[in-house]
């Protein structure tokens, strides 16, 4: 096994607070309240530790990171530490002056989310009337000279608008578009029946993306994340567990990926208790699925072991209840047929109602 490499990037989830209520949110069901969040000085220390550890980039995310009034300080601190800064935002709390302050502080790039191509669908999916505001904010971001990525999370209830989404990205001057099929953990798993596409929808969306990539080559990059319920081989989730990325949650827990808390039984160390480098190098939660030695067969002897790194541990847990099993997205997994059955059955049932992402949505009554 090769020596442990430093992480490429830090995903800094500054808060779980967000005006939007997207039913596929990647945050955990158990959202952290404001009182649990790391303070300004704690985050500034974490950013410095991440740069020292070898992170080259920081992605400020949430929740909605602009909820934090000290976001400008984090951008400035990260830039001074030598990190390339990226803001992943819904945009609805931004305006021209704040974008200018963030750019002055050293912000290099903004990824702006859209829930659909048109206001009616987008506002229903987000559980918030924000689509028109996002269009204004996109213009303000471009006006500040910042590169812009348009992010579209796609699923059964908006996939028929995929061409319009790509047209929207071009119209707002995005240099890059991310078309990401929902990944089913946490809130998205809770809403899987309302979100999962049919196989025909998936195949159509892939052909739309391929045609757009050819048409827009050199003008706009399109990154495409497929749902692997219909795949033959799993995705190389996070480029391998504990291999390229680390994620710090609003309350300071350090995770190998943003969904890792969905795996019951794993415990995660906190930046309040231990330096980031020690956690990256030696915490049990990072080492448990690192490399290839943890793998069961057929993964361990598979020629793709160091290509897909065993796929996704959160998905293995979500579908089989055992995070150490072969990712059921792989056709070689004994659980794969069950996964395909789930996708076909739930997409055909065509449920439409969402359980919106809320602090109170899942709290027991009384």
């Amino acid at each position: 096994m090769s020596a442990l490499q430093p992480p490429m990037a830090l995903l800094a989830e500054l808060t779980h607070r967000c005006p939007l209520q997207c039913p596929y949110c990647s945050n955990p069901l158990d959202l952290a309240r404001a009182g649990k969040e790391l303070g300004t000085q704690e985050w500034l220390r974490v950013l410095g530790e991440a740069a020292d550890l070898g992170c080259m980039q920081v992605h400020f995310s949430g929740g909605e990171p602009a909820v934090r009034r000290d976001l400008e300080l984090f951008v400035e601190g990260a830039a001074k530490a030598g990190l390339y800064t990226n803001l992943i935002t819904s945009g609805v709390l931004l305006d021209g002056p704040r974008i200018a302050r963030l750019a002055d502080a050293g912000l290099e790039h903004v990824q702006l989310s859209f829930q659909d191509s048109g206001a009616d669908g987008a506002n229903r999916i987000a559980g918030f009337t924000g689509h028109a505001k996002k269009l204004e904010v996109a213009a303000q971001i471009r006006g500040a000279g910042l590169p812009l990525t348009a992010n579209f999370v796609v699923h059964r209830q908006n996939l028929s608008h995929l061409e319009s989404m790509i047209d929207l990205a071009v119209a707002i001057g995005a240099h890059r578009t991310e078309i990401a099929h929902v990944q089913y953990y946490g809130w998205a798993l809770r809403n899987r029946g309302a979100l999962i596409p049919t196989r025909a929808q998936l195949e159509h969306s892939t052909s739309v993306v391929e045609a757009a990539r050819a048409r827009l080559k050199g003008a706009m990059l399109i990154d495409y994340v497929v749902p692997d319920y219909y795949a033959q081989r799993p995705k190389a989730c996070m480029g391998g567990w504990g291999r390229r990325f680390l994620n710090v949650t609003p309350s300071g827990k350090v995770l190998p990926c943003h969904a890792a808390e969905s795996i019951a039984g794993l415990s995660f160390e906190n930046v309040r208790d231990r330096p980031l480098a020690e956690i990256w190098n030696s915490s049990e939660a990072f080492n448990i699925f690192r490399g290839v030695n943890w793998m069961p067969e057929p993964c361990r002897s598979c020629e793709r072991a160091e290509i897909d790194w065993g796929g996704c541990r959160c998905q293995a847990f979500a579908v089989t209840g055992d995070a150490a099993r072969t990712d059921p997205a792989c056709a070689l997994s004994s659980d794969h047929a069950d996964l395909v059955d789930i996708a076909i059955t739930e997409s055909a049932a065509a449920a439409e109602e969402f359980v919106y992402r809320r602090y109170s949505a899942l709290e027991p009554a009384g």
Partner: protein
Amino acid sequence: MNERAIANASSRPRLAAHRRLRFDKIRESWTIQAPERAFLLDESAHAIVLRCNGETTIAAIVDDLCKAFAGAPRDVVATDVLKLVQDFLDGGVMTQ
């Protein structure tokens, strides 16, 4: 909408706005940091990127590299430079 830019001998490429050429002390490598992308540059890629300043043509960059790396065949250097610049133009990392 922007048309695809095609690199040729008279192009004057440079890094696009907010794309940063940086030395990474931990990896001991030159890198380009770009939106949600990071590129580690080997010695020859770094030599090319360093000369892409928006003023020097690709033809002049190739001439300069042939001087700096004595013995490198000009047609091989020219092919390498055009390929790297075209890939970075297509990836939004460079402009010209």
